[in-house]
């Protein structure tokens, strides 16, 4: 394309940040707020600057109310945060009760994150969530490192992942997103299994299992022995996982893990993510969706790109 036609193409046209997440729908923006960094209380919602956010993911909901883990729950490491919140939440029934006045009133798509201790628990939550209207999707948290018991093992084999996804998809009226993590190995068979079982998208990655020891007290620095690490330190791991899995499956991928500025976000799009999600940095710098949006617009203008899919295409062209 010569310079003139490029100019013509971009002249008067705004960069298109619309993001097609397949069955989940089209988001106005590829930026999603990750689970656990948006809270659960409705007073936040009217404050959301929705023009810079494509979708929000709720804090993970479990079947019964969950108190979460002992304190301390938050630690800081090199460019990272380790948390062991333990999915504190009021349970699916309270969530549904509050949904109408809370999440249900948001003008942007809401993805409900759920987790259970057994396949039947996942299915029961998914079933109850059929009562709510207008959610965009359900994200199956198959990989939270902060839950005891069986919860951990869901992500441990492709069969188990496939099982949860297919049982939930029989029950739920909503499209499903499987959230996977690097401790389930980078093997794409996990993602493929979720795809075969009927998932509509894959989220990569959850926090990475981690711990810290307080040597003077001879005990773990976290109340719950170990936790999940997030923040910029895990970004390269997440990026590679997104890259690997996007080669192998056709589903849209929501990439996340330490994204802290526009450059990071573009990296994930190049690696193959359709949308990106902000977690830890959201809590540190609340204006980050706006600055990432601005970066995207500028980046796409500079490189004469019309939409985010073109960013990925150009990366593929140069690397094949």
């Amino acid at each position, binding site marked *: 394309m010569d310079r003139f036609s490029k100019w013509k193409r971009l002249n008067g046209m705004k960069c298109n940040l619309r993001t097609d997440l397949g069955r989940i729908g089209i988001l106005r923006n590829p930026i999603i707020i990750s689970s656990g960094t948006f809270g659960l209380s409705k007073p936040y919602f009217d404050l959301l600057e929705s023009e810079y956010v494509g979708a929000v993911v709720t804090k993970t909901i479990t079947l019964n109310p969950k*108190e979460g883990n002992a*304190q301390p729950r938050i630690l800081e490491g090199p460019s990272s945060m380790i948390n062991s919140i333990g999915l504190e939440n009021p349970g699916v029934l309270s969530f549904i009760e509050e949904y109408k006045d809370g999440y249900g009133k948001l003008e942007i798509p809401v993805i409900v994150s759920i987790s259970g201790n057994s396949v039947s628990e996942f299915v029961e939550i998914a079933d109850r969530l059929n009562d709510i209207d207008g959610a965009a999707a359900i994200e199956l948290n198959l990989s939270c490192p902060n839950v005891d018991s069986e919860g951990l093992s869901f992500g441990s084999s492709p069969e188990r992942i496939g099982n949860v996804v297919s049982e939930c998809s029989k029950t739920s009226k909503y499209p499903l997103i499987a959230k996977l993590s690097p401790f389930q190995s980078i093997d794409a068979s996990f993602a493929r299994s979720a795809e075969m079982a009927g998932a509509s998208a894959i989220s990569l990655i959850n926090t990475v299992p981690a711990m810290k020891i307080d040597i003077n007290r001879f005990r773990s620095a976290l109340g719950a022995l170990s936790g999940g690490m997030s923040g910029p330190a895990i970004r390269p791991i997440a990026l590679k996982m997104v890259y690997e899995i996007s080669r192998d499956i056709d589903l849209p991928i929501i990439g996340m893990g330490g994204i802290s500025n526009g450059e990071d976000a573009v990296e994930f799009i190049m690696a193959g993510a359709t949308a990106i999600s902000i977690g830890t940095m959201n809590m540190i710098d609340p204006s980050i969706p706006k600055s990432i949006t601005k970066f995207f617009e500028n980046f796409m203008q500079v490189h004469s790109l019309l939409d985010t899919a073109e960013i990925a295409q150009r990366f593929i062209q140069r690397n094949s």
Partner: protein
Amino acid sequence: MDCRRVLYVFKREEYSLPGEETRSEGEVYHSLWKNSLPLHWRVSMNVVNEKCEVIRNERVSSDGHILVLNSRDISRQTLPGQFVEIGCYGEDMILRRPFSVFDVSSESLSLFIKIVGKGTKWLSELNSGSIVDLIGPLGNGFTVSSKSRSLLIGGGCGIASLNLLSRKLFDSDSNSDTIFGFSKPEEIPQEVIEGFQKRANRVLVTVDKGPYPFIGNVVDRLKEIDLENYDRFYCCGPTRMLKALEPFLCKREVEVSLEARMACGIGVCYGCTISTKHGSKRVCLDGPVFKMEEVEWNEM
């Protein structure tokens, strides 16, 4: 942007919510408080993000610094007991740090920094002219009633939130007495104590060990005092101290300000929850000031 009033107010100058006029300062209520707290807690406020310049960084004790920051938006709204979250930038640091507001004026805000880790070390070494990033005021503050008699009990850097409180009490014609506990004599910030002496009838200081007229903890000094003389008690300090005070004060009107490890400071991460008689609550949003009787001290 994230998802609460902070975020909207955050860039208030640039745009307002769709279909809504930009509200003037003082009119925007912190929605959570407005809905859930009893009347006396209702305060009109904006939570803002502000870049503040360090005006002065003064060492006031062996490990204590007072950081005076140039602030307009936060300082004008802060109530005693509220806190700010500061971005600390350095190796291995990523999270903001919560600090009680030590003092305010119309143009400045000061913080009492006790060096305990990397973040506080970094802050204590800031030169004047440096810029820090603040979000605040956060949390809810102490109840200040005029013409009352109060006893302020502080330990270590708990002195920070009590300082502004004592000033507000003084301004509202209330009588206050103070007890402070420190672990070593060199940790006593003399200047700060002198400030308290100007405003309080009586200031008692105690240290855990070392050459000092009074050795012991705050509970020991509390025993010298007739508690019937006070309508209200305010406590701020390490959890251990607050726990030790509880048996003495449990039947009285006591407000405690709790310290907690926090990530977001605005109520979204659930990192700082504590057990209370009314279920688990977040220190950053529901606190840091709680009624003493409300807290489940056995689980602290």
